[in-house]
């Protein structure tokens, strides 16, 4: 154990004395997760602001009860003589929409076919703003149309029996696991590659191999260092996640009072995150051990990233979710898949404790097995750079 710690300490000292590597471990995961979450929030926020409901629109002969609505949307009244000119501008995408009401426009609830007043709505489907304006106007005008009956007319009754923040949680559940993993992966890939393949390439591994230390202990010392480093990276990414959640929640309309996670949920998320990065770190170390150079290791490592992204994307599919749901705890027994799956379930508040427990245990066991395999590989002379 003493030799393992000596090697681990040396690796930590070496990594932490390098400002770039230190920033990579401590800051980059936070920046990626927090920055990405803020970017998503800003983009979504932008898509939801009132600015998007302001169109360069015009109307002719609008009845008084509709005029105020159009004015609120920024539309301007115009005369019939301007219709041709505005239509040309809409074709040229310099104006968004034109509504032409007939002079004798009237709302008739039960008119016979053919006797409805027709409103002409001129727009340009090749312009996004114009197309959005047309949908908004359709929606507004449908409010003035007569209804045959109402649905859920009592506004004081909560007819939706589900969790009002479910959609919010579901959205976060599909987004956050991949975000977390990408943040931490950015740290792991280079560190793992440098850790073994780097020393092998530079000839320093050979120098350690002729010391009286058991070769497997050299492997364990290096593995321990990487697990320490990715734990720090994991904590950094986790802090990024926790600090960005309130902003994400507010953007999607969830109020702080109703949308919140308990300490238990955060603890579950933390353990799943850390143990998942252990598993990935173990796999990346294996890649590093079989690679002859850092370049080779960093070329092979994105395979793990692809697996992560694929797992993340699969959890976004309802059909896939329903199919894998039937497998129950088996999902928690597959390293890589289990972490993404557990994080999604935790964020959606739909993760049984045993799923979290099995996920954590499997990931730690997988990381240990990877370290043992690397230990065995160090006993083989193929590890020697000749």
């Amino acid at each position: 154990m003493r030799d393992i710690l000596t090697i681990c300490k040396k690796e930590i000292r070496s990594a932490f004395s390098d400002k770039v590597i230190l920033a990579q471990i401590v800051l980059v995961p936070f920046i990626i997760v927090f920055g990405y979450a803020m970017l998503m929030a800003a983009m979504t926020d932008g898509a939801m602001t009132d600015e998007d409901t302001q169109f360069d629109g015009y109307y002719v002969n609008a009845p008084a009860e509709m005029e105020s609505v159009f004015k609120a949307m920024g539309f301007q009244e115009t005369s019939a003589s301007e219709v041709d000119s505005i239509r040309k501008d809409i074709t040229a995408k310099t104006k968004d929409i034109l509504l032409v009401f007939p002079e004798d426009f009237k709302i008739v609830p039960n008119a016979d076919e053919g006797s409805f007043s027709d409103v002409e709505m001129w727009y340009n489907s090749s312009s996004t703003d114009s197309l959005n304006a047309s949908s908004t106007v359709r929606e507004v005008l449908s409010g003035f149309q007569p209804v045959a009956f109402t649905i859920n007319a009592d506004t004081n009754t909560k007819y939706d029996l589900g969790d009002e923040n479910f959609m919010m949680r579901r959205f976060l559940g599909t987004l956050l696991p991949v975000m977390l993993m990408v943040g931490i992966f950015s740290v792991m890939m280079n560190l793992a590659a440098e850790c073994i393949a780097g020393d092998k390439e530079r000839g320093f591994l050979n120098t350690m191999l002729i010391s009286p230390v058991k070769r497997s202990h050299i492997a364990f010392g290096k593995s321990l260092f990487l697990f320490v480093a990715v734990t720090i990276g994991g904590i950094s990414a986790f802090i990024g996640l926790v600090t960005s959640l309130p902003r994400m929640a507010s953007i999607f309309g969830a109020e702080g009072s109703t949308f919140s996670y308990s300490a238990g949920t955060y603890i579950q998320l933390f353990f799943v995150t850390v143990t998942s990065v252990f598993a990935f770190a173990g796999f990346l170390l294996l890649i590093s051990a079989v690679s002859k150079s850092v370049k080779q290791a960093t070329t092979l490592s994105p395979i793990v990233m692809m697996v992560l992204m694929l797992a993340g994307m699969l959890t976004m599919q309802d059909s896939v979710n329903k199919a894998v749901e039937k497998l129950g705890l088996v999902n928690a027994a597959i390293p890589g898949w289990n972490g993404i799956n557990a994080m999604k379930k935790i964020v959606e508040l739909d993760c049984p404790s045993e799923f979290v427990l099995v996920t954590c245990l499997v990931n730690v066991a997988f990381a240990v097995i990877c370290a043992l395999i690397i230990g065995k590989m160090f006993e083989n002379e193929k590890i020697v750079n000749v």
Partner: protein
Amino acid sequence: MHILRAENLVKSFPLSEKQRKALDTKDKRKVAVGGISFEAKSGEVFGILGPNGAGKTTTMRMLSTLIKPDSGDVFYDDRSIKDHPESIRSEFAFLTTDLKLDEKSTANEMFDFFAGLYHLTKEQAEQRKKELFDRFAVNSFADTKIKKLSQGMRQKVSLIISVIHDPNFIIFYEPTNGLDIIAAREVRDFIINMKNEGKCLIISTHLFDLVEKVCDRAAFIMDGKIVANDTLENLMNGRSLEDSFYEIYTANMEKEG
């Protein structure tokens, strides 16, 4: 008395398709060392000489336990490298161009790290550091990152690290590589000193001058086999070592056709 004994060492390496074509052979493996035996003992310096590709480096790597022989064995005081690799590693120093230091560390940090791996106590480490750093004048750049050192300075630090544990067996491959005349002289004196202290030294180099000055016995290796193994006096037989080596080399080349 410490004795290092290599017995019938054989080592071959797999050949890739490309290598087979380049060598114009159908053999799937190339024999790098084909049955080498020799013995070196305390208080003497044993030289291993040979042209490029003769099998010197492979032999040195087997002696250092870096790679394992296909057959044969190496004994350090009757202990086999196959059975006791870790404990044997604590008794020899190995210095070759294969071995590099961590470029992000300083000489001081490297010394402390390896002192830890060789389980030296803090006092032992400090004493040894002072002794070796003074001897090789390393103090002035002891806190400079290895990557910023010249090749000669790095070679000095590598040499110091290799003998950090005051080993009984010392295996050096091109120990004066990259050193200036003064530093090369210091290394040569160091080798002679260690010999006088009763250490068992094996040196492989292309510098005949160094061999003539420090070695007691030497072996010539060609095509993975020892073609001559004797005292320096007998090998030279009134000629320079270089002439003697060239004569043996050409005679063997002619014999092989």
